[in-house]
């Protein structure tokens, strides 16, 4: 088969009806543009919303849960070994919240190649005293540098400098909502009462805004040593170790492994935040559905135009077949026409999609809940461009398939004798 000839015939047929061709190509261009933009925008938003939670959530968290002891004395007694024991009103054991031997655990994590980094944390329940009013809150003792590196802590400090937590002793960064309640600004000193009724004065060095209002109303951050001081605990006291892994998908097995190895509780991100995965995948599915619908509609346009072209060019098809073009060659001509509409329309669609995406990317998007975001988020992943190209070729191929088959089955005798 002479492909050069087939292409040149297809080209001349396309150009002979260039207005129709253009309309068909614009249909493809439009749908690919929308497909790329929609997916880019939707995944951009998804990433943003997921990031809101997931970026700040450790992949594996080591801690000690307050819970009843699994090994109750009656189960250990020899005479009740073979019976099933019902025990009522079991209380949580007065075990420490502290992670045992935290220093050794951190050394082990340091050596583990699967771990990207880890940050120790202490959680202390406190009252913030505002005159005669006590506001309940939480002071998180954190290692500012590790926290900033792993969980973008710095991004959420909207006022002041996070590093001051380390440099200024007895300092605190307040959540935005909490600071508003306490009428506290940077440089102010606030009063804190711990659960064991001890009062401390802490200097505000920053304001923190996570984007989740309820969270910001109760949370505050201090350095690990300040938190230890608040609780009256020694410098080895750590209640949480937050671990970031190199591969997030490995979190569940690693969490299980650490729970056994370090004799503590370990929670992985997938278990803690299962609902976010679901939300993202539903949104992505909807975007795909809309994009593919658009493409199918464009496909019908191509189908119509090719059908019309075949009726118009019946004579040409007949003479091509009479002078020795096989049905297959004629079929190829029309498939080629369809594919080139898909290819060039799709190519323009990718370009316009990219332009539209970057236009959206420049639209200001300021919301109090998201301090780090100034414009609408867009994802430019080449995967979507690749999928769009593939889909445009596949739909145009199928749109061309039936008209092309019809053209290849044209009986020249009927056409020529009919004249």
């Amino acid at each position, binding site marked *: 088969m*002479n492909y050069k*000839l087939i292409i040149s*015939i297809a080209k*001349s*047929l396309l*150009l*002979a009806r260039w207005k129709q061709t253009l309309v068909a190509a614009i249909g493809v261009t439009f749908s690919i543009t929308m497909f790329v933009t929609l997916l880019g925008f939707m995944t951009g938003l998804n990433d943003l919303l997921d990031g809101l939670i997931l970026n700040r959530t450790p992949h594996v968290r080591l801690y000690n849960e307050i819970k009843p002891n699994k090994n109750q004395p009656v189960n250990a007694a020899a005479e009740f070994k073979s019976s099933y024991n019902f025990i009522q009103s079991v209380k949580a054991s007065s075990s420490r919240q502290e992670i045992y031997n935290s220093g050794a655990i951190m050394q082990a994590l340091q050596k583990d190649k699967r771990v990207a980094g880890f940050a120790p944390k202490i959680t202390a329940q406190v009252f913030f005293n505002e005159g005669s009013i006590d506001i309940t809150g939480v002071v998180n003792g954190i290692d500012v540098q590790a926290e900033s590196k792993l969980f973008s802590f710095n991004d959420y400090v909207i006022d002041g400098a996070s590093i001051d937590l380390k440099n200024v002793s007895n300092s605190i960064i307040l959540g935005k909502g909490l600071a508003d309640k306490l009428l506290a600004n940077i440089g102010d000193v606030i009063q804190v009462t711990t659960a064991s009724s001890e009062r401390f004065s802490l200097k505000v060095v920053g304001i923190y805004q996570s984007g989740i209002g309820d969270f910001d109303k109760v949370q505050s951050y201090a350095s690990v040593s300040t938190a230890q001081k608040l609780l009256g605990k020694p410098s080895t006291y750590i209640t949480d170790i937050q671990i970031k892994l190199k591969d997030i998908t490995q979190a569940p097995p690693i969490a299980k492994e650490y729970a056994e190895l370090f004799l503590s509780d370990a929670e992985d991100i997938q278990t803690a935040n299962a609902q976010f995965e679901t939300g993202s995948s539903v949104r992505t599915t909807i975007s795909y559905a809309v994009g593919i619908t658009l493409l199918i509609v464009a496909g019908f346009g191509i189908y119509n135009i090719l059908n019309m072209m075949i009726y118009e060019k019946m*004579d*040409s098809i*007949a*003479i*091509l*077949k*009479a*002078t*020795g*073009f*096989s*049905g*297959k*060659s004629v079929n190829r001509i029309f498939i080629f026409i369809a594919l080139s509409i898909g290819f060039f329309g799709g190519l323009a669609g990718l370009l316009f999609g990219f332009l539209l995406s970057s236009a959206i990317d420049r639209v200001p998007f300021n919301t109090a809940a998201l301090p780090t975001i100034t414009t609408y988020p867009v994802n430019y992943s080449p995967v979507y461009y690749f999928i769009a190209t593939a889909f445009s070729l596949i739909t145009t191929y199928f749109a061309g398939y039936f008209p092309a088959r019809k053209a290849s089955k044209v*009986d*020249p*005798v009927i056409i*020529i*004798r009919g*004249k």
Partner: protein
Amino acid sequence: MSEIILEARQINKYFHDPVTVKVLSDITFSVNKGEFVSVTGKSGCGKSTLLYILSTMDTDYEGELFIDKEIMTGKKEAQLARIRNEKIGFVFQFHYLLNEFTVLRNVMLPALNLNKFPLKEIEQKAMQRLKILGIEHLAEKNANRLSGGEKQRVAIARALINDPLIIMGDEPTGNLDKKNGQVVFNIFKQLAEEFNQTLLIVTHDQDFAAHTHRIIEMEDGKIISK
């Protein structure tokens, strides 16, 4: 005895719609190399139907058809297309030129499809054919800019491009006025006599038929004289 180019053996053909009608019965004849044959008969006698069977385009018949001593009956569509491309040239009542192409490109099409010679050579051959027919000055014109007589001559040039064994014509002068019809007839005659080209022309024009070498006359689907 010269070489047989085309041979039909006991060809029968039926039309099934709306009722089965026998349109050709027991057609047996052969055409030798270099012959200028015309098939005549009244309208509806089956002469065109016969031509389309002989041209391999219509495959729905009984009997056997040989072209160049090779059996055509039962061959696949793609094989038949190849044979038409290589061995048969067509001239129809209507010219069937592709309007999007120039005259030269129209003439070149079957040769480009055959894909046996390089482009330059095909171009040369096409120009030579146009020269024989006296229309080489039209080569670069678009096909839809030509007069009826010129278009038919381009169609003849297209039929000649692959040096076919046989040229088949279905009322090639039917759409032309007397003068142009005469020109086309003279071209056929010249091809037959100077270039020893085999021609099989279906026509109802008795005048045209009378000047060919051999007349096959048909009536009611049968050959009554050959």
